[in-house]
């Protein structure tokens, strides 16, 4: 069933679409996540290009100030919640069950539900453009700019409801993957034998499950303030607008690790493979990942030095922030030590991983600069911060994800990507990103604030801004090269075989793409690097012994997700009929889901 839609002479279009809507196969859901997130990535990139076109010269008027606000808000929100997170989720879905030797995730239908909720939430948020009311309060939506007094339109409502919906998807997926990784490991796959990507997925999901409830509450307060006239962020009623900042960043800083840890996991798979050496200090990498997750809860107020929390709070949050750089730095040294003395093979996945390390170090260094409260006051709200976040999230997360895409593409499709196009993609992207983001450090230090739709020539940053814009368009070009590579790979069809890179982990011991049941027989794992061990794992038979029952599809997860969407539209339009209708669909969906026969 899983491969049916991929073959050329598959059944009719309608039934193929239906099979994707009802699928509960983790691999197909992974593909859905990947394709959807990549489309959102292109959309967010397009927004970035319009922003950069507007900023290419001083006093430009390509877009209005108000539309500019919508652009940077949607660019940030899209890249964080609709691109990087779900691109990582594509790999959690596709790769993690393969790496632990499982046939699927613990709750296949919940997994489908997460995807549909994510998709509809993303569509709802972006539908706002058609009403000329895209969110415009910035991706961290500070109170009380988001109050009805200062934001009377539907813009902020789209944002609040969109994020609430995406939160549901994330928490559901988080629980699912925590249980999958802890509970569905193949015999012999002890926790300390898990591939590092799976470990980082586990840590990420722990953060998701704990951090998202906090922003849920912050958003509920905002929603109630806007809809029912509560006073949570109302200064007149004695409320404190800093409540939003504390709740948001209590979520927001762990969110940074939700974005970067999966990429770190991917890099930790790629570097050993292309160095022909086991990862240096496996346990240390795992423990520093855990430490980052824990320390990540104690640093949030470093986003708030400028609000005047007082010397004690400033000092505490400065120190914890500097402290968290240590486990991060440890990982960098581990990757370097892995390569030391290895037989390096500079294939595209490896290039992106090397790019990740180099650029993440740059972003990390400017991050440590912000951690000093005194220095931060000079940098906050300036382009210096924009430079930092893009080195971490494009230079770090996106390059890491592209490393993962090039690495696992052969496994997921069965075909190789073209190396020359891949290298072109990498170098264009690498040059583009440095050209786009490095000047922003200086632009910021020279005093250009972020989130302002234009600037004066007197500031003397015209040339650097133009450079940055050129860089952004080079990044855009590099992405087109990637799309061409995908098309080319589908045309050339160079077969990948089981293990084109000679990699060590379990997913490379089965055909590419894997059959819908993944493993003909559940493997017995005897070492951390089963494909590289002398103590050979018992070979996985090419044909299954008997028929393997995989769960059939279900449309109730998608129906339930639609119920949530309609409920949200009801809230948006303040229409009780819509809200009740959505609630009914949701309840029916959940009951039908709970009681339908479904083989596990």
């Amino acid at each position, binding site marked *: 069933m899983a491969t049916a839609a991929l073959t050329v002479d598959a059944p009719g279009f309608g039934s193929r679409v239906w099979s994707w809507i009802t699928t509960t196969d983790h691999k197909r859901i992974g593909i859905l996540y990947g394709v959807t997130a990549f489309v959102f990535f292109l959309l967010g990139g397009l927004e970035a290009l319009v922003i950069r076109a507007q900023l290419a010269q001083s006093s430009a008027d390509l877009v209005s100030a108000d539309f500019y606000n919508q652009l940077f808000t949607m660019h940030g929100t899209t890249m964080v919640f609709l691109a990087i997170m779900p691109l990582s989720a594509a790999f959690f879905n596709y790769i993690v069950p393969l790496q632990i030797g499982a046939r699927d995730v*613990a*709750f296949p239908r919940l997994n489908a539900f997460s995807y549909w909720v994510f998709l509809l939430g993303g569509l709802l948020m972006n539908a706002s453009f058609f009403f000329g009311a895209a969110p415009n309060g910035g991706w961290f939506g500070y109170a009380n700019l988001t109050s009805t007094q200062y934001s009377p339109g539907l813009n902020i409502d789209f944002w609040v409801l969109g994020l609430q919906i995406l939160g549901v998807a994330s*928490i559901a997926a*988080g*629980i*699912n993957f*925590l*249980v999958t990784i*802890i*509970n*569905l*490991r193949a015999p012999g*796959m002890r926790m300390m034998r898990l591939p590092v990507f799976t470990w980082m997925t586990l840590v990420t999901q722990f953060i998701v*499950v*704990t*951090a*998202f*409830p*906090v922003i*849920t*509450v*912050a958003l*509920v*307060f905002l929603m*109630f303030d806007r809809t*029912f*006239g*509560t*006073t*949570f962020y109302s200064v007149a*009623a*004695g*409320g*404190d607008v800093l*409540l939003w900042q504390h*709740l948001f960043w*209590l979520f927001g800083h762990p969110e940074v690790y939700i974005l970067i840890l999966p990429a770190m996991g991917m890099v930790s798979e790629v570097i050993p493979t292309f160095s022909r050496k086991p990862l240096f200090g496996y346990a240390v990498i795992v423990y520093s990942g855990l430490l980052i997750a824990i320390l990540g809860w104690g640093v949030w107020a470093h986003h708030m030095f400028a609000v005047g929390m007082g010397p004690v709070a400033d000092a505490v949050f400065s120190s914890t922030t500097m402290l968290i750089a240590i486990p991060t730095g440890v990982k960098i040294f581990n990757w370097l030590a892995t390569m030391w003395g290895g037989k390096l093979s500079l294939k595209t996945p490896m290039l992106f991983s090397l790019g990740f390390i180099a650029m993440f170090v740059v972003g990390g260094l400017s991050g440590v600069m912000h951690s000093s409260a005194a220095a931060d006051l000079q940098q906050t709200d300036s382009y210096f911060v924009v430079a930092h976040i893009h080195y971490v999230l494009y230079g770090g997360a996106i390059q890491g994800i592209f490393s993962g895409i090039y690495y696992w593409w052969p496994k997921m499709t069965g075909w190789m990507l073209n190396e020359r196009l891949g290298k072109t993609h990498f170098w264009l992207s690498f040059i583009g990103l440095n050209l786009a983001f490095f000047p922003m450090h200086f632009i910021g230090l020279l005093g250009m604030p972020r989130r302002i739709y234009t600037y004066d020539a007197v500031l003397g940053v015209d040339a650097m801004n133009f450079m940055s814009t050129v860089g952004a368009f080079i990044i855009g070009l590099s992405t087109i090269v990637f799309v061409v590579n995908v098309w080319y790979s589908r045309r050339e069809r160079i077969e990948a075989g089981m293990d084109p890179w000679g990699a060590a982990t379990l997913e490379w011991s089965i055909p590419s793409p894997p059959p819908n049941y993944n493993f003909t027989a559940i493997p017995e794992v005897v070492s951390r690097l089963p494909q590289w061990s002398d103590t050979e794992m018992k070979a996985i038979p090419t044909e299954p012994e008997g028929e393997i029952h995989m769960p059939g599809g279900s449309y109730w997860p998608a129906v339930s997700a639609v119920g949530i969407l309609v409920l949200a539209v009801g809230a948006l339009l303040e229409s009780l009929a819509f809200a009740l209708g959505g609630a009914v669909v949701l309840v029916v969906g959940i*009951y039908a889901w709970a009681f339908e*026969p*479904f*083989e*596990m």
Partner: protein
Amino acid sequence: MSEAAVAHHTSTGLDSRKMAFWTFIGSECLLFGSLISTYLVYQGRSVSGPTTDILNIPLTSISTFVLLMSSLAMVLALAAVTRGDALWSRVWLATTALLGSGFLGFQAYEFTHFVHEGLTLQTSLFGSTFFVLTGFHGGHVFVGVLWLLTLLVRSFQRKLGPDKSLQVELAGLYWHFVDVVWIVIFTVVYLLRQ
């Protein structure tokens, strides 16, 4: 559904659904933690409207007792289902749902009374934080009651034998969690009022 078979295949030996539920409860702790923290931060900062003096501690003590007793009934319901006692399963499931509804009744009375006294969602920080915190908890109780009623119907359909006791166990986990959250809210909002 081959529940037993699934349980045996997990790496930890713990049923996946139970583990998922514990994880969900962990997540819920942060939800209520954020709500309760906000209540505490805003305590005593209202600039207008009724103060915490309008909280009726004796009455709420009774409703708290009702909710606590429902947890006891829940334990007995699970025991009855596990030993395959259909009659007492139904009695105790119905009792738990009834006591939960009783708690909701007290809350409905309390809310309307407060509104008459001039405390609404919009009145003040106290009104906003109080109604949203206790309302969220009430919403959780409501979902729990629906869940219990569903189990009750399943029992009448003879589809809640001892092999399905996990379903009751999960509902029980949820119910006890909601109960524990109320004990924290009762302590923080009512007993330690300022």
